[in-house]
């Protein structure tokens, strides 16, 4: 039932004692990096001055902008030689944020992912079909190594190619899948078209839903259609990737692995801790990471901490489903997109006017991104073909950057809301 019972059921006092010890070490380790060395000097902070967990308040928050500014190696606390892997976030505004791992970091991460999967009942006898992109994205490789550590048979299917996914599930009797929730819904239509009933024709019993927030309703839909238990997975590349927080069989929130992360929940405006049970922005500190420790990282994800002990016996606190973001990042088909990314691309294309609008629509189980783009008045030569070429060019340029294919619509100049001030750049019409 437990992957690591001593850690998972650790007494809270004992946990906090260990956290303090690890926090001290982590802050010291971090102070070796260019970024934290400069930051600590600027605020006259002594890395040895951490006496309690509350002392973390002396350290300023770290943001994605900091990671970008000190790209690529400014956060390293070890020599480059000691690194064995890099990953990168999918949503990028300008430079991608990159995270580096030492061999020990990868082992610790892998262990947390294995712990998470094992918690839901996955065992070495399982056949695990990993339907996530392998590569820079952390979801594919993160789960791959976790499953390998458990000893399951892995089918590294990767993302997409629905018909082959179904074929693999049937041929090799897949029992566990890792899948983006919106893709799970989409795939159900492919199952229906093919006349395959996953409850009857497959051996599926567990699904890990990750890489994008989803509702309880979506979970129930997936569970009912596939005839399995679906578990919510939370992570972000800055904090390794998957395996930060995960649901246990009781499915009442995600246990956040506090032996590896120090958890804070703050009001995104005042940056003060929120009252117990209230919603706030999740702020995380790595406690064990050696290659690239990050202190008080603002995840921009909004959630609540669930108080009280879980029936499963684990003492690590739980967080609710992510309810939103404190920035304007969009997640579509598991890909993180910032509107400013779209803006940057668009403004580099001749013929594009001042304003644009992103509309997210859900058609059946398929999510679409529509980008309305104003045409520059002077650009228009009276030629329909010229407009069609412009639309094609915009579509291709955006696709190369945001990785999904938007539906581009050209609109008349000055027909969209103006870009100055707090312009509405995004309309999200996706509903369950």
């Amino acid at each position: 039932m437990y992957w690591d019972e001593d850690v998972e059921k650790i007494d809270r006092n004992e946990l906090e004692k260990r956290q303090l010890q690890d926090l001290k070490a982590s802050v010291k380790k971090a102070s070796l990096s260019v970024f934290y060395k400069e930051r600590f000097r600027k605020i006259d902070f002594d890395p040895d001055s951490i006496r309690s967990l509350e002392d973390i308040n002396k350290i300023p928050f770290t943001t994605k902008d900091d990671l970008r500014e000190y790209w690529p190696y400014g956060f390293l606390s070890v020599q480059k030689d000691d690194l064995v892997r890099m990953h990168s976030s999918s949503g990028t505004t300008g430079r991608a944020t990159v995270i580096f791992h030492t061999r020990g970091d990868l082992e610790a991460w892998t262990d947390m992912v294995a712990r998470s999967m094992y918690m839901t009942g996955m065992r070495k006898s399982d056949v695990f079909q990993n339907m996530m992109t392998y590569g820079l994205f952390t979801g594919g490789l993160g789960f791959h190594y976790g499953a390998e550590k458990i000893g399951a048979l892995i089918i590294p299917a990767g993302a997409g190619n629905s018909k082959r996914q179904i074929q693999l599930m049937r041929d090799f009797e897949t029992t566990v899948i890792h899948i983006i929730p919106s893709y799970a819904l989409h795939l159900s239509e492919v199952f229906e078209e093919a006349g395959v009933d996953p409850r009857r024709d497959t051996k599926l019993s567990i699904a890990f839903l990750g890489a994008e927030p989803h509702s309880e309703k979506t979970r129930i839909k997936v569970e009912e259609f596939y005839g399995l238990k679906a578990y919510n997975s939370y992570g972000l590349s800055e904090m390794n990737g998957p395996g930060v927080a995960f649901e246990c069989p009781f499915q009442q929130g995600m246990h956040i692995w506090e032996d590896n992360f120090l958890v804070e929940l703050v009001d995104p405006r005042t940056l003060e801790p929120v009252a117990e049970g209230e919603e706030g922005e999740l702020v995380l500190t790595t406690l064990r990471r050696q290659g690239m420790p990050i202190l008080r990282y603002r995840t921009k994800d909004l959630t609540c901490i669930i108080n009280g002990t879980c029936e499963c016996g684990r003492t690590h606190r739980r967080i609710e489903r992510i309810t939103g973001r404190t920035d304007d990042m969009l997640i579509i088909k598991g890909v993180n997109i910032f509107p400013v990314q779209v803006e940057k691309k668009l403004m580099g294309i001749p013929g594009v006017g001042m304003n644009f609008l992103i509309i997210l629509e859900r058609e059946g189980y398929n999510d679409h991104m529509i980008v309305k783009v104003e045409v520059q008045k002077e650009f228009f030569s009276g030629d329909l073909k010229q407009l069609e070429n412009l639309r094609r060019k915009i579509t291709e340029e955006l696709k190369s950057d945001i990785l999904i294919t938007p539906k581009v619509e050209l609109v008349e100049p000055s027909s969209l809301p103006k870009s100055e001030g707090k312009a509405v750049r995004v309309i999200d019409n996706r509903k369950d």
Partner: protein
Amino acid sequence: MIAYQLSIFAENKPGRLAKVTSVLAREKINIRAITIASSDAFGVINILADDPEAARKALGDAGLTVSLKPVIAVVIPDKPGGLDKLIQLLAGQDINIENAYGFVLESWEKAVFVIEVDQIDKTQHVLKASKFETLDASALASIEPFHYMKY
């Protein structure tokens, strides 16, 4: 001779053409011919008007995205085979027609065929050599009085 056609970029939704015609009506600009080419969510309204320069200014002032485009307005006989002779000539010269539309000037006498082509200079030359009459903006503007005089 070269004529000028107004091309207006418009989203494919109710009211866009109404906006165009209301401006032209207010400015007392007469429309000789009109076509619409649309591509999904947007399109181009092409208008042959009696005063294209004034029309462009009025439409532009009204906030529309408009451009003046050179076209060739060829006079052809309004009888069977009248158009074919012109088209065969252009095809024989490897001239591609990007867009075209026509209207009758005098029933059973004369029609005008308006073409957008890929090689406008060559087309003019070819038409002149084959004795086709082409109309420019002022000729197009002055058609109507003659037309009425027939009655």
